[in-house]
């Protein structure tokens, strides 16, 4: 029984940063701005949140700083990609490179060869009654406090995107820029804001990863997590609920990979086993990802005549 709980807990832990990125990507890509640069927001936030944590010792402040720096990074991205109309993919990739270099050189500047210290990670907080529910309760409601925040962000994001007027604007911008402009939606503002919200989500994901899960900063510590987030958004159809499902699939598959390694009867080398989550992801996409169409104005730049 504890095995199952651990398995799901690991899956959730793996999924949460991916999920936050993918929710961010939902906002951003719904307005037709490619989320290639998510990694930059996430990585920068990992760095700033840990630095803040070391400086202040306060988790809350650390996470807030992480979120803000993610948003700032995205703002920087949007100045180029949204305002000036630079190629979104290239700008995103360039931001990723830049932040990779920036964080690791700052890391050296600040801590040098001694390396950054390892910080203690906050314990999980069981929710009084709910966590008593067997299995489900133990899996879902005995989590670090930030994860509960993520639980709330998912439905709120869905509601914002699909039920609120703001969401309607966001989606309209992604579908038909001219139409959006003609009904009085400020495209620049909408896109820039969506990018910033996306950056803040990625920043939150990064802060969770650094402060809650790892407890320190390592070069390129986000690994492929931001990419996974982008993929999850795609195949969740840019809906926060869909993206949650996709991120959970990734989390479960990645957690399963370690289980498979433990099974002695399949003697495969580690690389073969590590292929498993990706195969699973592709299988799931085959089954569910049919005819996902990205927003019609993806990567289109809008310039007022």
């Amino acid at each position, binding site marked *: 029984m504890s095995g199952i709980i651990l398995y799901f807990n690991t899956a959730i832990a793996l999924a949460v940063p991916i999920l936050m990125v993918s929710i961010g990507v939902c906002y951003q890509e719904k307005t037709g701005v490619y989320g290639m640069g998510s990694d930059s927001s996430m990585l920068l936030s990992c760095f700033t949140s840990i630095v803040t944590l070391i400086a202040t010792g306060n988790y809350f402040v650390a996470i807030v700083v992480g979120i803000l720096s993610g948003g700032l990074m995205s703002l920087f991205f949007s100045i*180029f990609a949204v305002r*000036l*109309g*630079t*190629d979104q*993919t*290239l*700008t995103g*990739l*360039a*931001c*990723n*490179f*830049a*932040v*990779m*270099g*920036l964080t*690791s*050189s700052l*890391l*050296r*500047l600040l801590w040098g060869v001694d390396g950054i210290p390892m910080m203690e990670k906050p314990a999980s907080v069981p929710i009084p009654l709910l966590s008593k529910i067997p299995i489900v309760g133990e899996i879902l409601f005995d989590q670090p406090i930030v994860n509960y925040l993520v639980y709330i962000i998912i439905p709120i994001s869905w509601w914002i995107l699909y039920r609120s007027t703001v969401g309607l604007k966001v989606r309209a911008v992604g579908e038909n820029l001219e139409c959006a402009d003609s009904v009085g939606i400020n495209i620049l503002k909408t896109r820039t804001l969506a990018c910033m919200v996306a950056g803040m989500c990625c920043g939150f994901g990064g802060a969770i990863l650094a402060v809650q899960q790892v407890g320190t900063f390592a*070069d390129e510590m986000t690994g*492929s997590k931001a*990419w996974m987030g*982008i*993929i999850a958004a*795609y*195949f969740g159809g840019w809906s926060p609920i869909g993206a949650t499902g996709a991120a959970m699939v990734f989390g479960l598959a990645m957690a399963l990979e370690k289980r498979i390694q433990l099974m002695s009867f399949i003697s*495969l*080398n580690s*690389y*073969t086993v*590590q*292929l498993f989550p*990706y*195969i699973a*992801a*592709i299988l799931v*996409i*085959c089954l569910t*990802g*049919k*005819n*996902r*169409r*990205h927003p019609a104005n993806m990567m289109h*730049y809008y*310039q007022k005549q």
Partner: protein
Amino acid sequence: MSIKGTSKDKKNVIETIFRFSPVIGAVIGLLAAALFVMLYNVDPITFIGALCKGALGSAKAIGNSLNRATPYIIVGAATTIAFKCGSMNMGQEGQVFMGGLGVAVVALILPSGTPALIAIPLALIGGMIMGAIFISLPIFLRVKRGVNEVVVTLIMNYMATLIVSALVVGPLGKVGASYPCTENFGEQYSLFNWKSVGHLHVGIFIAIAVAILAIYMFWVNPIGLKARAAGSSPAASLTAGINPTKVFIIGMLVNGAFCGLAGGVELLGRYNNLRGGYADGIGWDSLIVALLSGMNPKGVIPAGIFFGALFTGVSSLQRSIGVPSALLSLIKGIIIVCVVTGTAIEKYHLNRWLTKKKTVK
């Protein structure tokens, strides 16, 4: 409707200058990077000097730069092809890796006495086939199931590195290797190279040939016209009797095959065995090259050489003036942002700014 007479000298000068906006962007990017490097007590002039010297300062540097440009040009050209055919392949990285695998499989199967003139082409064809096979899954899923190829190719990038590693550690692996790799292929598989020119290998000619082929196919041959039509407007091309799905499939396959070729050339040009991680980052950098070229095969050679030189120059900095390696990707990022900004300004804003100035006067 009337056309305003083209006017004035000054405006034209500015416009001509901005034709070279990518170059200007690159220069500004270098200056920005130089300012940043000052944080590390490196003099900006030394920095730029060292960067240029490392990229183009000697025969060896030029050789290194061209070697690095080789896969960029091949993959870049292939990517522009696929893009013009209406597909968004993001799986270059994986396809390049698989190309190396194809080369290795052929090289390990062929009898060891095969002469180079037969062995190398066969091996490279093996690479191309492998690249094409690897890209077939996203094609199939897109055509038959409507699954977006961006997602699948992205995921398959991760799979490719793992597949190569798994095979190199497993069935193809050399026993007792100090790092995961296959047996050596044999001398005959090494691409001819000039030692004195930084081991510049003949791959660069293959690359230029591929780029020229792409230019020919796209701007001269009628097939290219049809493909471009299908890529930019599927409905209209259907009416004109072109099958956009077929174009998509062929474009993707060509992309996969040429990525495989690039992987093969890289492998045979630099190494004599297949090893995990041998092509790390090439696919991504090539995608950048393709994008920098404006997804136009014509721009791929200069963009590829620029990026190859940038990469070589930047990675020589640590050796020459001790700039920490961590800064290198920052410098790369700054320069790319500046180049794309230059392009965007030329494309969208320049005219407007110029005319605005005028009306103010």
